[in-house]
């Protein structure tokens, strides 16, 4: 993964317009299964959020920020979901909480995610948000508020710093082969 796709890498700041959703946004609405006969990122992105927000793909601008309440990404394990969100142009997802598989998939596919219940509850579609992964803050520029975010556990931060799971596994296997 390149620095651009590495989440939580040092010095990562995202500023963008909010697309806000409620709780329990499932991966079936993030990318409906009828479009899972491909793993082409651009094609997946063209159907992102289609079943709950048909206008999303027309409205979203590169760098925009997706915000949701609890349990974002629940349901199916389809990694196509974070891929679709990322390739639709979303820079970072801020949520009150993430479903477990989506959380792993986001880290593995390089979609930055941030857990921040206060910012998620407050932000509305159209707000401007500034997410600073190094400082660990979410700033709502429209409302003039700033909140701290939960840090990743050290192991996950290591995965992120090494460029993701597969580069991590590759270096592990290379080290084992050498020893």
């Amino acid at each position: 993964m390149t620095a651009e796709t590495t989440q939580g890498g040092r010095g990562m700041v995202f500023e963008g317009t909010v697309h806000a959703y409620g709780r329990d946004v499932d991966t079936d609405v993030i990318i409906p299964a009828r479009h899972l006969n491909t793993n082409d990122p651009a094609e997946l992105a063209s159907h992102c959020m289609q079943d709950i927000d048909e206008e999303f793909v027309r409205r979203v601008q590169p760098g925009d920020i997706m915000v949701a309440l609890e349990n974002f990404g629940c349901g199916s394990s389809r990694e196509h979901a974070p891929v679709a969100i990322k390739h639709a142009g979303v820079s970072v997802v801020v949520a009150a909480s993430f479903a477990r598989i989506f959380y792993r998939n986001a880290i593995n596919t390089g979609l930055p995610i941030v857990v921040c219940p206060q910012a998620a509850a407050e932000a509305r579609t159209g707000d401007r948000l500034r997410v600073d992964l190094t400082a660990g803050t979410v700033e709502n520029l429209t409302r003039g508020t700033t909140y701290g975010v939960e840090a990743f556990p050290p192991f996950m931060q290591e995965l992120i710093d090494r460029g993701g799971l597969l580069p991590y596994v590759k270096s592990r296997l290379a080290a084992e082969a050498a020893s």
Partner: protein
Amino acid sequence: MGSTITEKILARAAGRDVVQAGEIIEAQVDLALANDITAPLAIAEFEKAGFTKVFDPARIALVPDHFTPNKDIKAAGQSKKVREFARRHGIVNYFEVGRVGIEHVLLPDLGLVAPGDVVIGADSHTCTYGGVAAFSTGMGSTDFAAAMAWGHVWLHVPQSIKFVYSGRLQPWVTGKDLILHTIGLIGVDGALYQAMEFTGDAVEGLSMDERFTMCNMAIEAGGKSGIVGFDEKTARYLSARPEGSRARLDGQVFKSDPDAEYARVIEIDAAAVPPTVSKPHLPSNTAAAADLADIKIDQVVIGSCTNGRLADLRQAASILRGKKVHPDVRVIILPGTQQVCLDAAADGTMQALIEAGCAFSTPTCGPCLGGHMGILAEGERAVSTTNRNFVGRMGHTGSEVYLASPYVAAASALAGHIATPEMIGAGGRS
């Protein structure tokens, strides 16, 4: 301080004496699986990362079950990628149409999972294998790709919730009703990141097929895994697996210690659970089936990884035998495997269902996820024994899915609206 069954399995897989909830461990993988939707993405990532070898071709299962028999040209292309990868790497457990089944019914039935195993799968319903006292959990394609190369997986050791179901079940109440009721109780993120341990005399009384159903839906409460402890029924099921299979030869039985630590203990009066339905659009939106008689329906789906086992089809047939499906309703049967088809043919279940007016499908996930073989139009409603009723899950975003047991689904198929067997005058539970 004692350990839960989940902690003990994960300690074994991590080569440790003890692990505790909250720790991150590297666990050895006994079986890693993926399907025709998740495997192509995993194969692309595996190859992009430069891996050339899988850790063990016998411990990987590739199960093209979602859009097969290939529903369209693109799906055919995805299946082809899986087939070619399987051939290239000598994947032992690759299943072609004609032999394939729905992954979470097929793999345990073939004896590929033993108690105490760690199973990971690029499919959220991988939590099903807790039915044989194994730890199993769903992940994404990249995690599966990593496991194919590495034979290990990183895991956050989950806290467990202990569910204690006590009392004698009412007539027509099944494991499906218990799990829908439970999800209704705790919500779709009520067990987020946690292991759901199902215990109590009511669970001990369930058939293996119904235990698989309960574990299968742990994910719908946000759970990482679902598990039922090993007992005589587990032993009987395992001893009936194919000779020489892992289920017959391997495995290690673990039990939760009496002083194990749980995040919560939830006592459920199983005798008070009615035939239960989850209304649109969340599995937690539960109601008693008897209270939903005004909901007219267009389609009934019976089967899937949740309820596509022989016992499920027999339950449906016990209601439908000698009767006719309501003229306004179409019924689709999704058997879990070819063996389920054969068994259903041998004991008359298939004939009863077909004579009642049901369409008998080949094993496929099909309409459960809105893939093919029974998509709903705008405004249509289905009663389904599947696992999710999200917006658009079975077709148009303006369609609706009501989740239920095979008994309630079959009774509804006869009535043309949501109904319990009791409401249509069925005799005692067969």
